[in-house]
């Protein structure tokens, strides 16, 4: 006769079994492969044997360098200036391409530069596109996580009321979540169209033609913002539902007590609703962060990382390299870096939102 512990334990394993097996097969196992591939030169298709290459994939992606250049001077020793008055510097390619004196900079490109007095310091990266992808992804996460979470909470508060036909509103806000992100991206491409897109027409009509037409996805300054706005709109309904379920676990008696005590709306929210949503908030924050780091489909459909790398993201780069450029080892390396990144941030979030006793 099995004890109660092992009996319920085996039931537990039985229930968890299918999911655990599938996750092991499709997530854990490929990931172990990815870690292995990131130390090799594995190709997607190639007759050449795979070779162990150590950390070279990592240094290829993460390598950075510094170069400080003095402005060019003419024979009299005066600084040569551009037409706009800024000093002229020697071309970087003279240092980063086939220059035997700077072997450590070979193949690097300018990531960004800062001017200190007359000299200028260039921060070089071995893989500028990847660096830009990391920065773009972080910007995306930093904007999307609070905005989407906050907006979802606002919507959840709005639809958590006993009004006639409230389910219609719930359905409307939730609808974009049901539609595939690929379809949504295709549709928003028309909305953002630079010539006769819906957004341009709308803004033009509202301002009586004063608003200039913007090529939202074709302009490096607006492309990432456009994708952020659309992504928030698409997924906000999902988090709204999670907030809603959190709201409905809060006991009505607390609200009654608050009402009897004469609490204002804000005080009710601050001292009853928000504490009651603690665990939900942690969940929503972590889920949004992880989803935002995985930004891919919108980029693939709408911009392919352009214009001028303004919408490159980490996952898009992983797919582009692993599959598009047949460089599985490079794609795997990016995945491993992303994993470490997301793990670190999740742990940090857990630590920041821990129960303080």
């Amino acid at each position, binding site marked *: 006769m099995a004890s109660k512990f092992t009996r319920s334990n085996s039931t537990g394993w039985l229930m968890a079994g299918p999911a655990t097996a599938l996750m092991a097969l499709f997530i854990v196992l490929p990931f172990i492969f990815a870690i292995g591939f990131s130390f090799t030169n594995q*190709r997607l*298709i*190639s007759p050449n044997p795979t070779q162990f290459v150590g950390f070279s994939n990592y240094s290829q992606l993460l390598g950075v360098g510094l170069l400080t250049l003095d402005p060019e001077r003419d024979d009299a020793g005066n600084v040569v200036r551009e037409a706009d008055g800024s000093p002229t510097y020697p071309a970087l*390619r003279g240092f980063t*391409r086939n220059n035997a004196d700077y072997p450590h900079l070979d193949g690097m490109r*300018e990531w960004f530069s800062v001017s200190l007095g007359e000299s200028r310091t260039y921060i070089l990266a071995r893989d500028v596109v990847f660096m830009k992808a990391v920065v773009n992804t972080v910007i995306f996460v930093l904007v999307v996580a609070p905005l989407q979470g906050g907006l979802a909470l606002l919507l959840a508060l709005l639809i958590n009321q006993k009004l006639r036909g409230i389910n219609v509103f719930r359905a409307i806000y939730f609808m974009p979540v049901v539609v595939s992100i690929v379809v949504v991206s295709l549709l928003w491409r028309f909305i953002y169209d630079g010539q*006769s897109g819906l957004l341009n027409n709308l803004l033009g009509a509202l301002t009586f033609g004063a608003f200039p037409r913007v090529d939202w996805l074709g302009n*490096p300054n607006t492309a990432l913002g456009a994708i952020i706005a659309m992504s928030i709109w698409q997924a906000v309904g999902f988090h709204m539902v999670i907030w809603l379920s959190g709201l409905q676990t809060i006991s009505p008696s607390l609200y009654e007590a608050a009402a009897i005590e004469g609490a204002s709306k804000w005080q009710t929210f601050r001292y009853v609703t928000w504490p009651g949503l603690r665990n939900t908030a942690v969940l929503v924050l972590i889920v949004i962060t992880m989803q935002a780091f995985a930004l891919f489909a919108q980029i693939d459909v709408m911009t392919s990382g352009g*214009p001028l790398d303004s919408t490159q993201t980490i996952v898009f780069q992983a797919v582009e390299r692993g599959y598009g450029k*047949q460089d599985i080892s490079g794609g795997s390396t990016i995945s491993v870096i992303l994993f470490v990144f997301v793990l670190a941030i999740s742990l940090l979030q857990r630590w920041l939102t821990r129960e303080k006793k």
Partner: protein
Amino acid sequence: MKSLSLLAASLAFASAMSSAAFAQTTLTMWYHGAGNEVESDIINQIISDFNASQSDWVVEIESFPQAAYNDSVVAGALAGNLPDILDVDGPVMPNWAWSGYMQPLQIDEAKIANYLPGTKGVWNGELYSIGLWDAAISLVTRQSYLDELGLRTPTLEQPWTGEEFMDALAKAKASGKFDYALDLGTAWTGEWYPYAFSPFLQSFGGDIVDRSTYTTAEGVLNGEAAVEFGNWWQGLFTDGFAQATQDPADRDNGFNSGKYAFSWNGNWAALGTLDAYDDVLFLPAPDFGNGPKIGAASWQFGVSATSEHPEGASAFIEFALQDKYLADFSNGIGLIPATASAAALTENYKDGGPLAVFFDLSEAQALVRPVTPGYVVAAKVFEKALADIANGADVQDTLDSAVDEIDADIAKNDNYGF
């Protein structure tokens, strides 16, 4: 109870039917044209004709959407389950042949002696694939536009020079009649970029990789000629002659609705343009100093390396190479028939036909994309470099880093066997 016995009976019937066909060996085939009804009608006709013509083989076709086709083949190959007969995009063929996905065709060379050069997929001295058609690009415009703008009509013998071409764009822009002077088709991404735009680079005197060794791009993709090309390319957008980002609908319909004075487009779009206007001209590519160039090679048929019946697969491909099928494809979807004799059977490509000029263009100007397994990666790098330059990136820097990336890839692959 009744439905159950019905089911059993139909099962028995079905298995009896399939055992009747056991004498023939089934050959599987993958094709990229899913979703195009005309195209699948033609290919299905060839297959049923072939199946009826002999008793050894039965070809079964499975169609994929073009956008997912290459991925499906790669996935199929990794899973060890390729069909017997493949179709393959010409420039991708060396990659698949080198990777061991394909085997040389067993086709009598005499049979394809008079085929357009772009239709023959030769890698390492062996014929791996053969196309029933070629595709060509032309500069599309209307006689009335040229007359209004006071431009000389270029001919195959005397195409526009680079200056004449830029002069034409400037005049079209100055006329104020058009949204943009030139429709380059930047709404299309992927293979369109190297196919349509690398011939410009080649006409300037550069190339995607150095064809004398195929082991580097240094000097050809970032040399003087390439930088000159890059500056010209960037100028098209900064001077407002063309759009760096284009609405896909404008690509499909812009020229036909009068938004552009010139369109850089393929023969597959020509039928639609002929419907729209009655004075359409298909002009040769301008000559930027090293001869006018356009891309060559379209989709072709080949046999997978894992096929257990290469003789059957080759027999099918040889069967498909009949002039009447070449003509069917041409009439159906406007492609250039691979032989002159097939062209004579078609509505559009026969002597004096409205599209006959494409046959001549393909013969006179077409240059295949670099024949190397590394092309697949180089093409992606080239596409990104051109998109970046169009959006304002520094020309020399962009081409330098494109060269670095292509060279790194070649080195990573042990020079792709060169």
